[in-house]
């Protein structure tokens, strides 16, 4: 049913309930002017809205009722019981029609002439004589099925939605927050005392609390489309004012996020779209001259990733001009020429986030009114988000905003500095690096050997500590020094840990003494008298009842004078943006290196395939049948071991690589996580061992590359078995991909998702398969391929043959709006970034009929969870 209609029905049902009460009140006190005008207003609103929605029958009745009420309001008619009864009869008819609407989405058929005539009679001032007839009339006029619907009004929409004040929801959220804290406290006590009578009920309480928390969170969730709905109008007006042609394309409107976050994002989003339209896009003439289509495009895309929401705002406009920015930076003395010369283009682009920076030569009425990107950035950072920027001169700009799903309860890393503990939100933690601190900080060269053996060393440039991390210099800040904490002498130990955090487009290492654990914390704002300490974003109560402060890495960076946005020399290589996966066989990819199964050969897996890394304590791993599971956020996650599972259970803490797909996840138990390296991934030797794709040289060492598809099926055969059974015929796919690595990665993944997969190593081979009569349901193809590119291939497929009308999905590292457009022009039905398994699967499901979509629902996971708990 139309959203608008649903809203109208909800609202009208409320009005009708009010109307009944008011009419009865009016009958008792016929000269009650406020009640009369209330009734008039309610009926008038109904009439007005249904005229707008195109509901003629409802409009007719409401109009007749309104005429009578108008006469009463003007004092021409007295609200005698007879008149009120007639109006009530009209209201009853409205209810009847509304119920019919709620049930079918259509106005029910029926004849209202008698009723309308009776109302008009009264309105015309003629006697209310035919009242009795008119009141009786509805029942006889109404069709039989309608009487039925009228008899069960609660089953309609009125019963499904209610309005709840935001305050009530906020209060509920606060209470749930307290409940979570109390639960954590109880669990902590229970862990300390060992198993007793309380253990089982406490487990249940814990689960119920988690469910309740999720439920209450859900009530606060709103689709991001709510923050976007004003944008098309805004863009239209802007296009008008500036004489540009602009299309706005909004995707992922249904992506839900906490309403508090949504409210805070509304203004920055509006500002950025306005910027894109005003500064980013060119005039039609300029675009023509640049060889582009006259109409510029602004694309908004929102999606979930991990516990975050990513929002992309991109345009295919002129892009950022590094030259102009450089000139402006010099003019405003934000950096010296020498500093600028040492900066990369991305770092120079980063200057647009600096305070008081605007490249628009003239301040127009639209943007550039003093509210710059710096305000946008600080607004986003205030809610624990980050904003990144990628721009190609002449091609366009893309901003990627990463924000937490909710601000109320977040996952945080608990660390110690001095004798105090602090929480660092997980969203900003990229990795943890153990370092030999004391030795190096002391500058003692003789002890360097000791720390070099296993630990990375902190080096000093002058008095500034830095860490050489994978050939980059990472600026370091010691938390104890920054917060002026006394050294804790009671805890000797020379080692520290660097918490590598993402700040803006750069990175910052925060040096702490100890890292404890991750904990779900309830964020509470700090008292107003502490608001000036911007290093803290809030405070929280831990499971043991102690109060600790939550660190804001961006605030820490600012306080330490480290600029995350361009002023930081060569140290902070900008991270890839927008192109979530530029990884290609010829390019460097981030690889997670680990050891598993007691094997000394390191294993590697592309980092982008790993949803997260967990460190599960021994007692949280529970055997189920032949396998193991652990609880994560109240759900069971199957754990798979690469070697003998029993050896895994001898460890106190078990490192786990978590692979997630759709709503389900599985964990791979490994021996240790070695490193994350950026390297080319070329599989040199194939493997016939299950679960491994082959061997590649990574960071100068041979490593086995993991076949994630295989391990996903190991997670639980039930998922796939159950799905396959419900699916009468497996859909067939053809994968066209020149890189052996990606082909070997894709085929098992898609097979695991229940498809029957054929593969071709080149477009030419694929076309040969077509000509030989291979029947498939959809094609997944790479774009960048030697000889015949994916685009040419798509054109060839569309040109004729048995595949001409199949859905075709393009896999690419370059998922910009413009590329997607080119892809679509060539004949691709959808464009999916490489490595984005979830996007590929959902795109496939969507492309392949609704029947296929059912395969990816949550039903399988739910059934599994039930089986395991029984």
């Amino acid at each position, binding site marked *: 049913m139309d959203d608008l209609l649903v809203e109208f029905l909800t609202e009208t049902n409320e009005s009708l309930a009010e109307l009944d009460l008011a009419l009865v009140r009016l009958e008792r006190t016929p000269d009650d002017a406020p009640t009369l005008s209330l009734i008039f207003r309610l009926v008038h609103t109904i009439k007005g809205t249904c005229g707008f929605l195109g509901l003629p029958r409802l409009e007719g009745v409401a109009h007749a009722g309104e005429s009578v009420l108008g006469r009463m309001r003007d004092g021409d008619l007295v609200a005698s019981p007879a008149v009120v009864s007639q109006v009530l009869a009209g209201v009853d008819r409205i209810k009847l029609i509304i119920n019919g609407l709620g049930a079918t989405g259509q106005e029910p058929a029926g004849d209202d002439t008698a009723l309308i005539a009776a109302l008009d009679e009264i309105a015309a001032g003629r006697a209310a004589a035919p009242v009795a007839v008119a009141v009786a009339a509805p029942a006889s006029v109404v069709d039989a099925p309608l009487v039925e619907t009228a008899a069960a009004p609660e089953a309609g929409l009125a019963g499904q939605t209610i309005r709840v004040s935001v305050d009530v929801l906020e209060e509920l959220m606060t209470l749930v927050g*307290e409940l979570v804290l*109390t639960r954590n406290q109880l669990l902590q006590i229970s862990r300390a005392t060992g198993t007793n009578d309380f253990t089982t009920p406490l487990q249940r309480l814990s689960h119920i609390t988690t469910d309740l928390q999720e439920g209450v969170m859900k009530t606060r969730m709103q689709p991001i489309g709510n923050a976007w709905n004003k944008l098309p109008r805004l863009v239209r007006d802007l296009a008008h004012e500036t004489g540009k042609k602009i299309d706005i394309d909004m995707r992922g409107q249904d992506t839900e996020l906490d309403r508090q976050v949504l409210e805070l994002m509304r203004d920055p989003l509006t500002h950025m779209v306005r910027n894109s339209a005003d500064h980013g896009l060119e005039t039609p003439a300029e675009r023509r001259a640049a060889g582009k289509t006259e109409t510029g495009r602004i694309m908004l895309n929102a999606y979930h990733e991990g516990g975050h929401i990513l929002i992309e705002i991109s345009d295919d406009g002129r892009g950022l001009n590094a030259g102009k920015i450089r000139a402006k930076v010099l003019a405003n003395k934000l950096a010296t020429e020498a500093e600028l010369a040492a900066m990369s283009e991305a770092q120079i682009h980063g200057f647009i986030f600096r305070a008081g920076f605007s490249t628009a030569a003239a301040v127009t009425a639209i943007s550039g009114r003093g509210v710059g990107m710096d305000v946008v950035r600080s607004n986003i950072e205030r809610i624990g988000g980050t904003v990144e920027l990628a721009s190609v001169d002449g091609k366009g700009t893309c901003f990627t905003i990463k924000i937490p799903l909710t601000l109320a309860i977040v996952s945080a890393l608990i660390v110690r500095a001095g004798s105090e503990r602090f929480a660092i939100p997980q969203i900003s933690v990229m990795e943890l690096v153990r370092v030999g601190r004391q030795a190096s900080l002391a500058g003692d060269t003789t002890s360097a050997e000791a720390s070099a053996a296993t630990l990375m060393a902190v080096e000093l440039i002058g008095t500034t500590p830095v860490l050489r991390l994978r050939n980059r210099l990472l600026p370091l800040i010691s938390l104890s020094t920054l917060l002026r904490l006394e050294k804790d002498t009671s805890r000797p130990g020379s080692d520290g840990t660097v918490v590598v955090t993402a700040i803006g487009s750069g990175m910052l290492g925060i040096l702490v003494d100890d890292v404890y654990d991750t904990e779900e914390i309830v964020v509470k704002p700090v*008292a107003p*008298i502490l608001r000036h*300490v911007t290093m803290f974003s809030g405070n929280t109560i831990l499971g043991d009842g102690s109060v600790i402060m939550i660190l804001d890495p961006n605030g820490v960076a600012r306080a330490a004078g480290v600029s995350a946005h361009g002023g930081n020399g060569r140290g902070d290589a900008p991270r890839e943006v927008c192109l979530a996966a530029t990884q290609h066989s010829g390019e460097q990819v981030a690889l997670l290196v680990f050891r598993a199964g007691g094997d000394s050969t390191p294993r590697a897996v592309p980092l982008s395939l790993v949803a997260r890394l967990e460190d599960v304590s021994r007692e949280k791993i529970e055997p189920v049948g032949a396998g193991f599971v652990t609880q994560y956020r109240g759900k069971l996650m199957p754990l798979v071991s690469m070697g003998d599972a029993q050896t895994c259970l001898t460890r106190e803490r078990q490192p786990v690589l978590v692979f997630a797909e759709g709503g389900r996840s599985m964990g791979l138990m490994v021996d240790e996580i070695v490193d994350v390296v950026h390297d080319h991934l070329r599989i040199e030797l194939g493997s016939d061992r299950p679960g491994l794709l082959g061997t590649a040289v990574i960071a100068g060492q041979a490593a086995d590359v993991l076949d994630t598809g295989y391990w996903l099926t190991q997670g639980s055969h039930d998922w796939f078995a159950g799905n396959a059974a419900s699916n009468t015929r497996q859909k067939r796919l053809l994968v066209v991909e020149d890189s052996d690595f990606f082909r070997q990665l894709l085929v098992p993944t898609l097979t695991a998702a229940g498809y029957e997969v054929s593969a071709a190593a080149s477009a030419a081979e694929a076309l040969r398969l077509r000509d030989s009569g291979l029947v498939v349901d959809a094609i997944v193809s790479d774009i960048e391929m030697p000889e015949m590119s994916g685009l040419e291939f798509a054109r060839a497929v569309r040109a004729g043959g048995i595949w001409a009308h199949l859905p075709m999905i393009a896999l690419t590292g370059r998922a910009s709006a413009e590329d997607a457009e080119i892809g679509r022009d060539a004949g691709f039905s959808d464009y999916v970034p490489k490595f984005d398994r979830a996007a590929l699967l959902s795109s496939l499901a969507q492309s392949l009929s609704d029947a296929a979509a059912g395969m990816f629902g949550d039903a399988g996971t739910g059934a599994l969870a039930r089986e395991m708990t029984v």
Partner: protein
Amino acid sequence: MSETVTIPPVTANLTGERAYVILTLADQLCGVPVLAVRDVLADQRIARIPLAPPEVAGNLNLRGRIVTAIDLRKRLHLPPREAGQAAMSLVTEQGNELYALQVDQVSEVVTLPAADLEPNPPTLPAIWAEHAEGIYRMENRLMVVLDVGRLLAITPAQAS
């Protein structure tokens, strides 16, 4: 949580009397309107807050709510408590936030006639005058009536 002293519901009544919680700060008798006090707490575990103004002693957890503790000795520029001397706290609410005012000792609740409140003598040190509503002459001592609102008006500027 350590024991909590519940305060009898003594309120300002119609006869023009006011009820105060009596406390001591470095041997000075002070009073806080009973209506401003939510709880009286014995010594609490307080988590320090780095970089906070010096008069902010830290945070404490009061039945799941975070309370900011203010050291009234520091606030009123009095010498610090001797080592080992436990503090008591009066919990008060302002703008939906809870604050714990740390004092040396909380003794009793008294009801005094409103008319007996005398204005601050002009010779009262500025730091006291700033935070006092007036003075009561008790049998043999003076009691300074503290203004909770002004005590909580800590500005970051004062901190530095």
